[in-house]
C-alpha cells in the first residue's frame, strides 16, 4: 500500500537523522572536557546543546522504534492470541494512543509558533538560545510517531477484517 510505504519511509528517515545526531552529541561533550582542561575554560554552549541533541534523538526515533517493534510489551498472553484477537488489542490500543499522540502533535505545533513569535528563550544558561528549534524537533518526532501509529492501525484493521496476520513489508 502506498500510504503505508510512505509512512514507513518517513519513520526510517527520522530514525536515520536521530542516529546521526549521536555523533555531534559525543563530539560536543568531548569538546567540553577538552575545552575545560586544555583550553582552560568551560564552554557556554555544550550544556544546552547536549540536552537538545539527546531530546532530538529521543523524539525523532520514537516512530522508527515503533516501526521496528522496539517498544517493549508484555506478550505473555498476547503471544497466544489468534491473529484476529491480536488485531482487536492493537486497534483499541492504537486508537487511544493515536488520539494522544496527534493531540500532542497539534499542541506542539502551537508551541512552536508561539515560541517563535514571542522569541522565547531557554533561560537555562548565560547563552539562553531560542527554544523554537528544539520544540520543532519534538513536534516532528511526535508527528512521525503519529504517522507510524496510523500505519500500525491500518495493518491491524486489515488483519481484523481478513483474520490473517499482516504479511510482508507494507
Amino acid at each position, binding site marked *: 500500500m502506498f500510504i503505508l510505504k510512505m509512512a514507513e519511509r518517513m519513520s526510517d528517515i527520522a530514525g536515520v537523522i536521530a542516529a546521526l545526531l549521536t555523533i555531534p552529541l559525543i563530539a560536543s561533550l568531548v569538546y567540553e572536557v577538552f575545552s*575545560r582542561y586544555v583550553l*582552560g*575554560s*568551560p564552554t*557556554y554552549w555544550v*550544556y*544546552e546543546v547536549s540536552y537538545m541533541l539527546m531530546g532530538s534523538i529521543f523524539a525523532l526515533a520514537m516512530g522508527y522504534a515503533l516501526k521496528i517493534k522496539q517498544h517493549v510489551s508484555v506478550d505473555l498472553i498476547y503471544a497466544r492470541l489468534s491473529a484476529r484477537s491480536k488485531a482487536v488489542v492493537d486497534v483499541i490500543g492504537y486508537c487511544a494512543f493515536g488520539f494522544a499522540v496527534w493531540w500532542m502533535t497539534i499542541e506542539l505545533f502551537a508551541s512552536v509558533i508561539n515560541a517563535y513569535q*514571542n522569541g*522565547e*528563550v*531557554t*533561560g*537555562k*544558561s*548565560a547563552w*539562553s538560545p531560542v*527554544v523554537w528549534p528544539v520544540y520543532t524537533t519534538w513536534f516532528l518526532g511526535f508527528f512521525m510517531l503519529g504517522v507510524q501509529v496510523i500505519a500500525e492501525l491500518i495493518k491491524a484493521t486489515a488483519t481484523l477484517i481478513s483474520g490473517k496476520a499482516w504479511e510482508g513489508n507494507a
Partner: protein
Amino acid sequence: ADVNWKMATPWSGGPWLERDVKGYAKRVADLTEGRVDITVYPGGTLYSPLKVTEGVQKGVAEIGNNWMGYDWGIDKTGVLFAGYAGGLTPEGYMLWMYKGGGLELWQQWRQEEFDVISYPCAILGTDIFLHSTKRIQTLEDFQGLKLRTAGAWADIASRLGASTVVMSGGEVYSALERGIIQAAELGTPEINLPTGLQDIAQYVIVPGIQNPGGLLECQVNKEAWSELSEHDQKMLKLAGKLSVFESWLDSSAADLDAFRELQEGPNEIVELEQSFIDEAARVTREWAEEQATADPWFKEVLESQTDFKNKLKTWSEYRLPIGSLAD
C-alpha cells in the same frame, strides 16, 4: 469546603514548601473559615516545576506558588521582584512592595502579560554567596573560578571573570565533591545547611550579593478567582501579606541559627572585600540597563525599584543596623 484547589509549586521539599507554602494554605483555610481548601503539590508531581505559571493560566492547577525568576525564558522582568543581584534586602522588598508602589506594578505586569491574579506570599532571606573549595575574597580570586550557577547571575558572574559551569541541580553535589566545579551557590543558610555542601567545601563566602533578598508569589487562575466571593478574594490576598510577614520571621530566625551553626563548625567564613561588592554592583547595573533597553516593562519596574533603593539610602542615618546593640 466550597472550592477545592490544587496548588502547584516548584519546590520538592524544604522550608519553602513545608513551612511557607503549606502555611499559606492553612492561613487561607482559617481566614475563609474553611470555604477555600488548598492542597499543595510538591514540585514536578502535577506538571513541570518550571512551568507553574503556564499551568495556572491553563487551569491545570487553580493556584500556584512560584519564584518569578523561573519565567525568565519568557519575560525577564520577574527577576526584579523575585530577587537578583541588583535587588533589595528582605526588609527593603517589603517596604517597596507595600509602601513604594512595587505591588501595583507587580499585579499589573502579571495581569497584562500573563493573565493571572498574582500577589506576594513569602519573602526570601539573603543567600550565602558561595560554598567554595577555593578562598574567594577579592575580584582577583574570582577570576577563572569554576562556578556552578544559573539565571541572571550566570551572566553577571561571567562578566566578573568567573568560568560559569551550567549543570543540572542533581549533579551539583557530586561535581563539587569531585572537583569538576570549585564553587556553587544555592540559597540562604537555612536552605544550604541540610544539603551538606559545607562538608565538601571548606569556605563559606558571604554576603550573598547575587541575591540579597527576594519574594515568592502566589498566582491564581482568573476563572477560579472569579468564582470566589469578594470577601474571600480579599482573604486570599490578606493571607499572602500575613505569609510574607510570617516567612520573614521564620526564615530570619532559622537563618540566624543555621549561620551560627556554620560559624561554630569547622568551615572558614570569608567576607568579600568591599571593592568586589562595588564592582559587582556596577556590572549588575550595566546588565540591568541593557535589559531595560529591550523591554519596556523591565524598564518601568527597574526605575521604580532604583528610585526606592535610593530613598532607602537614608535608613542608616537615623536607624541603628540590626545587631548593632549587642554586647
